[in-house]
């Protein structure tokens, strides 16, 4: 299979990445090359094999419904690129 420039644009949009034309070209070639090498998986019969999402079979641990972390203070906001008092500031969403 061949990866097209159009597919790369679509995936970049899903991933919220703005690509320059030269990056688009490079990524089209790279993904094509990498996925071509990965087609060897197709040849392997995996009928009836359980997919493995995680190593451990232990269930997700439950804990008491109690607040254990300290109240969210200024520490959460000190790394914000833009803030307004105790709020994160973002570009206007609704026109």
């Amino acid at each position: 299979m061949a990866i097209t420039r159009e597919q790369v644009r679509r995936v970049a949009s899903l991933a919220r990445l703005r690509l320059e034309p030269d990056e688009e070209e490079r990524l089209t070639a790279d993904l094509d090359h990498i996925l071509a090498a990965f087609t060897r998986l197709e040849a392997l019969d995996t009928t009836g094999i359980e997919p493995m999402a995680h190593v451990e079979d232990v269930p997700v641990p439950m804990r008491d419904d109690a607040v254990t972390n300290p109240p969210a203070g200024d520490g959460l906001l000190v790394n914000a690129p833009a803030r307004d008092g105790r709020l994160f500031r973002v570009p206007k969403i609704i026109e």
Partner: protein
Amino acid sequence: MSALHDLTARDAAARVRRREVSATELTRAALSRITAVEPQVGAILTICEREALAAAEIIDRRVAAGEDPGLLAGVPVGLKDNICTAGIRTTASSRILEAFVPPYDATVAARLQQAGAVLVGKLNCDEFAMGSSTENAALGVTRNPWDPERVAGGSSGGSAAAVAAREVHASLGSDTGGSIRLPASFCGVVGMKPTYGRVSRYGVIAFASSLDQVGPLARDVGDAALVLQAIAGHDPADGTSSQRPVPSYVAALEGGVRGLRLGLPREYFVEGMQPDVEASVRAAVRTLEAQGATVEPVSLPHTEYAIATYYLITSAEASSNLARYDGVRYGLRAAGGGTLAEMYERSRAAGFGPEVKRRIMLGTYALSAGYYDAYYLKAQQVRTLIRRDFEQAFAHVDALIAPVAPSTAFRLGERVDDPLTMYLSDILTISLNLAGLPGISLPCGLDAAGLPIGLQLIGKAFDEATLLRIAAAYEAASDWTARSPIP
């Protein structure tokens, strides 16, 4: 007496407890070693001089007051820069986190501190731990202390190089597909990837959450055991960390290998392997046989599918994990106006490097509608088959023995333009991450160019103790560890 920076971590800590040397003296010695050799190594992104001296002073006061200062009392250490440290910049070697100062400590950072270790530096790595050479690093170049024209390996290249160059006595790295063992091998130090769930991931910047695991890099096997002891064990803040009790790794070092059964995976002696790598590993196998271990061939038949499986699964997980970098709560926000969506796209474009973008694209593609079953689901099924290979091998043997990589450290720039060739550097290390198993890399020779060769031992889940025991027996019968390339 040798220079303070040459001491093993356990010797240094013992001397602090006996009041023969102070934590402050050890810390000053590490800082002056860093000043002397860092220009030729480039292992450290942030030197924490003020914080380190303050921490050392606290240790010294505790010693003076007769308190127990901990297993690693006063020992200068470094942390891979994807491990969060409260008040100390943590970048994951990415432009997108260049100015990020975490408000909290990763559990492993806090545990090292509780054990008395003194953090002197945050160490370079491939961006978001994606790479095999530490060349995908946005904020600095790390060189192999054995040859400045060669890579240190990756992704925990700074963690390995800093230990090899004697800038720190031990360090922590993270290993998703070989990122502790490969640089340990290339830099001639000991590196251990623990079983998935043995060490907390809380506060470790996520790459591929079902595989990421933190572990020690150290100058010898005893130090690796000591550091693992300090960080292992359940953490309520990480739901995937295991409740199993932690055995004494230090006690495990004494056992010897008599009666142990070692498996030699035939698929791990690959075509095109550097001949002196294979020769050194086979010599190490004979050394262990002479110590009383028995060795038999085993097969891991799905090894040839591991690279594709690994890169599909980790890239899918990474594309999801890295969705959090949106320029809103922390990290880089690109300047300029526009809509919220445009701000996301421009910030991510400016903040991520080429390899991170490549993996986000690969992962997003593998998860996207129409391709999910063919790539992601298929890879998850093959992951089951790869795990079964190990289960079948471990029905017969106690541990597996193999090289860490098909070659010794390659030249800077040699593979950077060919992602697929770079991915092949991980061919002997990634399978055990898919299966969640522990592995250790330790030095077993030097090649014709004088570069370190690594021996890899792979264990059953939660059987780090047996790996450390075999490694310690090999180390005692050889003289490859504890060599420093820089006088």
